[in-house]
């Protein structure tokens, strides 16, 4: 299908890291069902390393592919690196997204940040609040 790159279709039809982590250390949910996209990310963290990550997504093909790619990009990485992940990096790793689908990659970035923030909050870890501006709807 010409709308999406082969990579997007691959991550959409065979998404990586789908599911939930029951005893997750951090959970983040962003998006709005009214707008047609919701992403929920679960993190398992040991010694500041993301040892496992899973996602559930309600949304279009590019939303599911963005979730899949984003989780691949942060799995096994230190939190500091995950916080540096940008939506552009997610879109580039998917060989690009159509312009009107870029907001899906933004949601993926925001979902990860939201899960990390939740990890900090629930584990009493101090952090710089400026690192987590309020997620905005694209």
């Amino acid at each position: 299908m010409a709308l999406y790159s082969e990579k997007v279709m691959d991550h959409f039809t065979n998404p990586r890291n789908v599911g939930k982590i029951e005893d997750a250390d951090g959970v983040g949910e962003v998006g709005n069902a009214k707008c047609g996209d919701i992403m929920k990310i679960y993190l398992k963290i040991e010694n500041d390393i993301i040892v496992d990550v899973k996602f559930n997504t309600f949304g279009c093909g590019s939303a599911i592919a963005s979730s899949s790619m984003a989780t691949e990009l942060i799995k096994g990485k230190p939190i500091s690196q995950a916080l540096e992940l940008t939506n552009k990096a997610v879109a580039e790793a998917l060989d690009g997204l159509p312009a009107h689908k870029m907001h899906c990659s933004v949601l993926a970035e925001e979902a990860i940040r939201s899960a990390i923030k939740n990890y900090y909050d629930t584990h009493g870890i101090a952090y710089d609040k400026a690192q987590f501006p309020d997620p905005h709807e694209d």
Partner: protein
Amino acid sequence: MKVVYVDNAATTAMSDVAIDAMTPYLKEVYGNPSSLHTVGQIAKEALDDARARIAKCINCQPKEIYFTSGGSEADNQAIRSAALNGARKGKKHIVTTAFEHHAVLHTLEKLEKEGFEVTYLDVHENGLITAREVEAALRDDTALVTIMFANNEIGTVLPIAEIGEICRKYGVVFHTDAVQAVGHIPVDVTAQNIDMLSLSAHKFHGAKGVGALYVKSGIPLQTFVEGGAQERGKRAGTENLGGIASMAAALEYAVEHMKENSTKIQSLRDKLIDGLLKIPHSKLNGDRCSRLPSNLNMCFEGIEGESLLLLLDAKGICASSGSACTSGSLDPSHVLLALGLPHEVAHGSLRISLCEYNTQEDVEIILNEVPKVVAYLRNISPVWEELENGEKPHLI
């Protein structure tokens, strides 16, 4: 992989009848109908013949048929003409519904900017309106009522004859976008009191890029394309003769075989509706009875339509959805919202539109694949999880 094409409301495959009718005009009959010489006059005869045959199919006079590039152009020309005719008499009010095709809605939005006032009738939950509601909306300055014959997304068939009768009674011009109806259900502009009607060839196995506008004689039609005497001066440009010939042949064939085809198609449709309604928290959109034989439109809660379509496409099933992501906007279909469906439900819609080429096997493939794809998407959907955990109430 077998392709199961069930997007016939978007477009149909051309029939052999239509292709055979078209090819002579791509090869030996290449003349321009406006030329005086023999080659041109043969083309002219073919044009007149096609016009007469199409007129017969919808029960009007040949001179009341104007060929266009398709349904959208016909809608634009009909509405703009009626608006201008009305404005000349000081009438600048138009009545329509909230779920028309964009060819109608966008034309009306432009007219609003030009000083017209438009009443958009609310559509009931079942995708219908009544003639009485149209009557109540009429005013002394109403120039036009434009209401679709059958809805392109949910397939509901509106009470056109009754609406036409009301418009006749009050002397208001009545246009109907019958793009989804012509060739599929009985259309008779005389019996149904229709003043203007748009139709499109590729919705009934004719060629793309060709359609027609019926305008009852006595109603002035404004010229849209200037530059020639074609279509009695109302639409300049050398006629798309091959396309027109395909349209005449396809329409005649469709009308001739309407009864048997619609019986077959409707039985396939009903199997699909009954089968897909077994999926929990699913819903048929639009009235089940007053509906095109070919259309079913369903919502499945907790999933999004574009991902549903893409996964079905991977299984060879070509369908359509009213989800936002398929339209390039963030809002789901204006038709589903007009029915009062919540946004989150409207996102999860699937339109299947059949034709006589579909088979029992197609139905079985769809009934086998759709529940699996819906279950898969629900399984990875945080929205579905919340619904199932009771954190949010099911809406359907």
